[in-house]
Structures are given as C-alpha cells and as structure tokens.
C-alpha cells in the first residue's frame, strides 16, 4: 500500500527561483537563506520519495479571474514550467502520477472534498521553487509530483480547519492505493509577507515562530485561526500559510521534527521551512 512518510513545508518566493536560475545562491544576500536547505537536500536524497503531493497556490498563472477553483488536483502526465511574464523558469518538466492522482480525486470527493479535477496545467514558481530548494538543479526531478492547487488569491481561501481536514482525507486516500509507494506531502507558501499597499513589507517574526511551533504539536487548534488573524498579523499574502495545514493534516498526530529553519528576508518575505517525519 502507498504510505505518507513525511511532510515538508517551505516558502516559495519567486526571487528564490531567480537566484537559483541566475547562479546567485552564493552571494552575500542569498547564502544564509540557502544554507538553511543544505540539511534538507541530504535528507531528501536519503528518503527517495516516489511521489510528492505538492500543495501550492497558483499566482494568476494557470487560473485567472475567469476560473478560481478553491481546491484542485492535477491528474496529467507532464506539467510544464509557466511563463509568468519573464519567460518560463529553466527547470525540468514536472512529471505527474496520473494513476495515484485520479485515485486521490475519486476518493476524496467521496470523502466530502469536492476537488476540481484538472488534467494539464502550467506550474508556476509556487510549485517549482520548492522543488528547486529541495532538489537543487537536477536534469530531471527525481520523483513524481501531484500538484494540489489551493486558491489563496481571491478572498476567502478555504478555512484552515477545512485544509487540515483535507489533509486527513488525502492520507486516507493514499493509504487505499494498492501500489507500494513512498509518498511525501509538501505544504508551501508563507510565511509573513505583504506585497501590496502602504503596509507592503510587513514581517511578523513572532507570529511566524509561533506558527512553526504550533503546526508541529498544536495543529488542530492552529487550524481554527480565523483568516482575519493571518491577514492582520502576517500580511495580506501571509494567509498562504493555510496550505501548510493540508500537509499537517496528512501526517500522524505525533511527528518527529527533523529540521526547522527561519530567515528574513527573501525579497519581501519571511522564509520558513520544516521537515516532519511520521513517528
């Protein structure tokens, strides 16, 4: 049977992708941030996941104001890197896992989560930056990836508790898949940041560090935090953090924290990163 063995959370700032693509990871600005992912690269090389359920948000790339699914899952075979206005990131195509993805879709809909099913979509920095942070710059990504897309652009995003419950449903669905697969789930986005208006540049280290504490061992209560609290305390774009709750819901109640990293700034954003293994 397929099993979820571990979860990873990370911010997905586009400037991180640009730093990698332009060979700037060693400069004074970026070096301390990339240092926080050195352990992670070694860890994932040992873990060798077969499939990653990669929870991210589309940034007006594959979806626009004409179509805004609250939750979507992509069941296609190949996902190309999107042109977000400055040409596509030079990263390998992302290979999907159509059999598991359609199994997940059919399962969770019957478990009361009415996901939108997408076949092909172009994936933006929200999905490719986490892959680059964890795997570096390989010729091919070393595993399959199932994009799970969450609307956090048009208010309201799904509630935190709904995200947490979706994680639990995804876990049940993974465990009912017959093939033996080592599956990880990643939650991406955040941490505190605001990209708009006179309050742009907001960072809240205390909020972020409390969130990093609580998502490990107090996630159920954390999942009840109202949206307005994220918006007010972590910035208008900080509400992306609800996506981490999908990751957390898919893991055991008891987890081992293998790695924790926090860094300010990456462009306008606070970078947070956790690796959790099921006990």
């Amino acid at each position: 049977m397929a099993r979820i063995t571990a979860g990873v959370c990370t911010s997905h700032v586009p400037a991180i992708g640009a730093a990698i693509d332009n060979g700037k990871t060693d400069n004074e600005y970026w070096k301390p941030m990339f240092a926080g992912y050195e352990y992670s690269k070694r860890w994932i090389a040992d873990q060798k996941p077969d499939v990653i359920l990669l929870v991210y948000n589309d940034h007006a790339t594959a979806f626009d104001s004409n179509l805004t699914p609250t939750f979507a899952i992509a069941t296609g075979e190949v996902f190309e890197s999107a042109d977000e206005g400055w040409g596509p990131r030079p990263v390998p195509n992302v290979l999907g896992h159509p059999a598991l993805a359609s199994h997940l879709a059919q399962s969770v809909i019957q478990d009361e989560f009415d996901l939108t099913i997408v076949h092909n979509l172009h994936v933006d920095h929200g999905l490719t930056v986490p892959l680059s942070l964890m795997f570096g710059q390989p010729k091919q990504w070393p595993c399959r990836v199932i994009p799970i897309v969450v609307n956090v652009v048009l208010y309201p995003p799904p509630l935190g508790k709904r995200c947490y419950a979706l994680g639990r449903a995804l876990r049940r669905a993974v465990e009912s898949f017959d093939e033996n697969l080592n599956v990880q789930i990643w939650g991406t986005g955040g941490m505190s940041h605001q990209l708009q208006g006179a309050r742009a540049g907001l960072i809240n280290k205390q909020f972020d560090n409390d969130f990093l504490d609580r998502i490990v061992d107090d996630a159920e209560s954390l999942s009840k935090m109202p949206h307005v609290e994220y918006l007010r305390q972590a910035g208008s774009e900080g509400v992306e953090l609800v996506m981490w709750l999908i990751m957390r819901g898919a893991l055991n109640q008891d987890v081992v924290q293998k790695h924790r990293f926090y860094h300010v700034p990456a462009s306008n954003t606070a970078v947070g990163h956790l690796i959790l293994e099921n006990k």
Partner: protein
Amino acid sequence: MALDKPYLDIPGTTIFDADMARKGFHLNQFCMSLMKAENRDAFKADERAYLNHWPMTEEQKQGVLDRNYNRMISLGGNIYFLAKIFSSDGISFQVAASTMTGMSQAEYAQMMLDGGRSVEGNTYKGDNQNG
C-alpha cells in the same frame, strides 16, 4: 445581509474579495494577456491602443499608464495579476512593492534587510503607523 468584512480596519491593505474581483475583472484579465510575449510587444509598442481593446474604465487605464499600483489595487487590481505589468517592465516584486509605500527603493530594501516592516502600530487603522 451584507457580507462580514472584518479585514476593513487593517491599515494600508486592500483584500481582494468578491467585490474587488468584480470591479477589477477586466483590469486583471488585461494583465493576464501580458503572459504572452507577442502581447507584451503589442502593449509596449502602443500602451494606450492596447488598453483600448479592453473594456476597462478610463481610471483603470490611466492607473496602468501611470504605473500607479495603489490606484490599480483600489480599482480592483490584484497584485498577482498586476505583477504581469511590472514583470513586462522588467521590474522586480520588491521594487514594485516599494512604489506602493511612499519609500524609495533603497529605503524599502534596507527596511527588508533590517527585518521588514514592524507589525507594531500596523495592525489596526488609527494605530500610530511606523516604518
């Protein structure tokens, strides 16, 4: 009954909700068109003519021509859509964000290096806004 909008008292912040999305639909869809290189070229060749193909308000068009991002946001623009405009201009997210704050690029970049804008005094309208 009116929708509950508990976020309206957050200073310096516009939440892209259903009302804003309705107001900004054509502005945002214009932005999406800039994801294609040929459209970026056409826009750059004659911005006004390109904008006139879209059923946007004159205020929205002027906001785009002036690259006034706060104005565009107040007229329903969302930052991830508006990003297609400043990306077409070859401007980074950080530089674009700085233009919305009344700070110079250098001041804004330094504020981020120093740990970002403090949340102190920046959570409720009427707070003594700092930074």
